[in-house]
């Protein structure tokens, strides 16, 4: 079987819906960077969509549109991945504008993960950020201890290609350009120092973003690859 046929079969079954959860999320992730797969998926979506004619419309709940509107209003500062890509293609200035809020899902997830004790048992002030692509599943969980100025990065889902690295950036309107916090190790959990001389308020109001860079990190000191994930800190312990 050729590689292309293989991709096409996977795409077909993804769109049909019968792939198991793990394969589904692997495909959804790969789709973002694999143009062949994306095209195969789009074609299958188009091929099978006429079947939806067999589903008789059902009136949605009342007030659903109002709820959608208020969601949009409250998430208008949430970073759009697409906006980020465009911004990067243009200029880093846009980064400062893109610094935005964290979704309710991310906030509740961060709370949940901490509640289950997966992140830290420290009694010191601890802050956590879920770095994710909009409201998709989280990719990295970042925990910051403001006293020790250490942060830990837990990798939840992604694995970059062997010749690429994820790099962590802090984005804030007071910074002229995104500040690198270094390449993220390809291990499940990593501890690294925060930039200690910056104001804690700046940390709290910054957006933390992860870009895909060549092996070893950005060669220029500024993000060169696509921004894959982003999030902001929330306080998790007193």
């Amino acid at each position, binding site marked *: 079987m050729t590689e292309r046929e293989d991709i096409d079969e996977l795409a077909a079954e993804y769109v049909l819906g019968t792939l198991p959860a793990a394969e589904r*999320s692997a495909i959804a992730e790969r789709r973002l960077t694999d143009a062949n797969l994306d095209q195969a998926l789009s074609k299958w979506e188009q091929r099978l*969509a006429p079947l939806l004619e067999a589903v008789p419309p059902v009136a949605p709940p009342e007030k659903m549109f109002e709820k959608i509107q208020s969601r949009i209003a409250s998430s208008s500062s949430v970073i759009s991945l697409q906006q980020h890509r465009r911004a990067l293609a243009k200029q880093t200035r846009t980064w400062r504008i893109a610094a935005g809020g964290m979704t309710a899902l991310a906030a509740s997830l961060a709370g949940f993960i901490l509640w289950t004790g997966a992140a830290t048992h420290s009694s010191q002030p601890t802050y956590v950020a879920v770095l994710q692509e909009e409201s998709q599943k989280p990719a990295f969980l970042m925990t910051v201890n403001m006293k020790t100025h250490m942060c830990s990065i837990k990798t939840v889902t992604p694995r970059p290609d062997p010749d690429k690295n994820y790099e962590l950036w802090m984005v804030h309107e007071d910074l002229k350009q995104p500040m690198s916090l270094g390449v993220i190790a390809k291990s499940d959990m990593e501890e690294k120092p925060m930039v200690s001389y910056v104001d804690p308020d700046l940390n709290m109001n910054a957006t933390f973003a992860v870009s895909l860079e060549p092996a070893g990190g950005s060669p220029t000191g500024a993000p060169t690859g696509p921004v894959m994930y982003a999030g902001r800190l929330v306080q998790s312990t007193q």
Partner: protein
Amino acid sequence: MDALLARVARGDSDAFEALYQASSSKLFAVALRILRNREQAEEVVQEAYVKIWSRAGDFKPEIASPITWMAAIVRNRSLDEVRRKAGRVFVNDGELDQLESDDESAIALLERQDDVARLKRCLDGLEAEKKKMVCLAYLDGMSREELAQKFDKPEGTVKTWLRRSLMQLKGCLEQ
């Protein structure tokens, strides 16, 4: 709907409301059929419209029709949801032959009447059991495991049948 989506991409909220009015009963039905739970379906559809609003600029009219693009967002979220948990209760079977259109689905239908007829003809070319499997998977979100139980076949057989049926459909549609 193409024009509406293009306006939504430019941040036109009137166009967004019009798009919602034209598509929400269809998208809600699609989610409800897979999730079998009104609350979950509402949640998924709300999320989907937020995504439609923020990603309308990614829509490529040369690749998909608007309703296909929007329905894919809803289906993917719904399927991710049901694949994560097991043991749904199926009250009734998916019936492909309910192909009657009413006022609202007519909007979507207008775009693709030919496509519907063609896909139906190609589905009719599959053996009855396989056609039913494909429809239950696509429309009701049944997993391989659920299909295996329903049709009393090993999961491996279900997987093979589905893939072969899909390739047969592709061949038929490309004729």
